């Protein structure tokens, strides 16, 4: 498939980059990225991936747009309140870039549906806010051999890492098991600066783009942390030894997905 004149112009700032070129842009147009959670992280990630011409973007989210989302979830606007987030996100993307096909899944991910959901995608982006979902996404990606970007944000801090099968530790290598309910504060309880989703969600989009075009170094084996108050980024090198991991190790003890319980107070 050759790029049309319109695409040559739309993506001209990409195509002029030696790391991208027409070849990289075609890879983007042929790529399929699934975003789980169209919220603080997923909103900016979806927008940059759509603008970049990622040809197929899947968005999974069961929620509706709430007034309290709009401080950070910039893919949704005031008229979208009450609308399904996946619908609102798909409408925004359709306006941004007609090259993008959006698949919407108005559902929560669970052990029942996630493996099938991620199977047809090249790269998965975790934009969820809670640990049951984060561990579920990790384990499913390990089992389905899918690369994914993990991220978390709270208050003035954010962090992310990238898992690529066979190229370093997974999320469970680092964090082992979800913390008990209410042991670790959530954004709803502790707050988050809206632009944090923009910083970290955009970095997740950057990881997806680099993976697709096959250029640069990914955050595999590295947890990148960001503190907005001190304006410091810090790369934490993760241990290389993953053979003991319960899911990605040599003798996994987790061979079926687990639906962990989530704190009730985060229901909304």
């Amino acid at each position, binding site marked *: 498939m050759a790029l049309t004149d319109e695409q040559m112009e739309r993506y001209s700032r990409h195509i002029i980059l030696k790391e991208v070129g027409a070849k990289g842009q075609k890879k983007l147009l042929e790529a399929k990225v699934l975003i789980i959670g*169209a919220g603080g992280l997923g909103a900016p990630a979806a927008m940059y991936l759509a603008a970049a011409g990622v040809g197929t973007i899947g968005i999974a989210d069961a929620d509706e747009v709430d007034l309290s989302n709009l401080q950070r*979830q910039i893919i949704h606007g005031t008229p979208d309140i009450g609308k399904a987030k996946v619908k609102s996100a798909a409408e925004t993307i359709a306006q941004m870039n007609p090259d993008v096909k959006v698949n919407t899944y108005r559902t929560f991910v669970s052990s029942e549906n996630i493996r099938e959901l991620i199977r047809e995608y090249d790269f998965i982006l975790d934009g969820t806010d809670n640990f049951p979902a984060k561990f579920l*996404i990790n384990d499913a990606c390990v089992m389905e051999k899918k690369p994914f970007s993990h991220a978390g944000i709270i208050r003035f801090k954010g962090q992310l890492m990238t898992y690529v099968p066979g190229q370093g530790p997974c999320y469970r290598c680092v964090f082992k098991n979800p913390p008990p309910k209410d042991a670790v504060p959530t954004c709803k309880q502790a707050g*988050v600066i809206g632009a944090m989703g923009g910083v970290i969600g955009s970095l997740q989009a950057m990881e997806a783009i680099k993976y697709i075009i096959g250029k640069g170094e990914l955050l595999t084996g590295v947890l990148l942390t960001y503190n907005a108050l001190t304006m410091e980024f810090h790369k934490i090198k993760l241990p290389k030894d993953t053979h003991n991991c319960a899911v990605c190790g040599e003798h996994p003890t987790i061979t079926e997905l687990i639906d962990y319980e989530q704190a009730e107070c985060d229901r909304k």
Partner: protein
Amino acid sequence: MTITVAGEKKEVKEGLTLPELILLENVETPEYVTVSVNEEFVASDKVADTVLQEGDNVEFLYFMGGGCHGVDR
């Protein structure tokens, strides 16, 4: 002795233990933090017995949620 904590060099007393450092650093939710020393994870049941050495590189890895609901609850 000098150790590195979260990328920053710090002067600490000889024989400082990991639980003492966790207190000094005001680590949030210390029971749920993952610790690495010199790019090796310290198993949670080994934290109490870990004595730090000159030149050690300590990192604290925190649970962080954020983003959007993903699973039903």
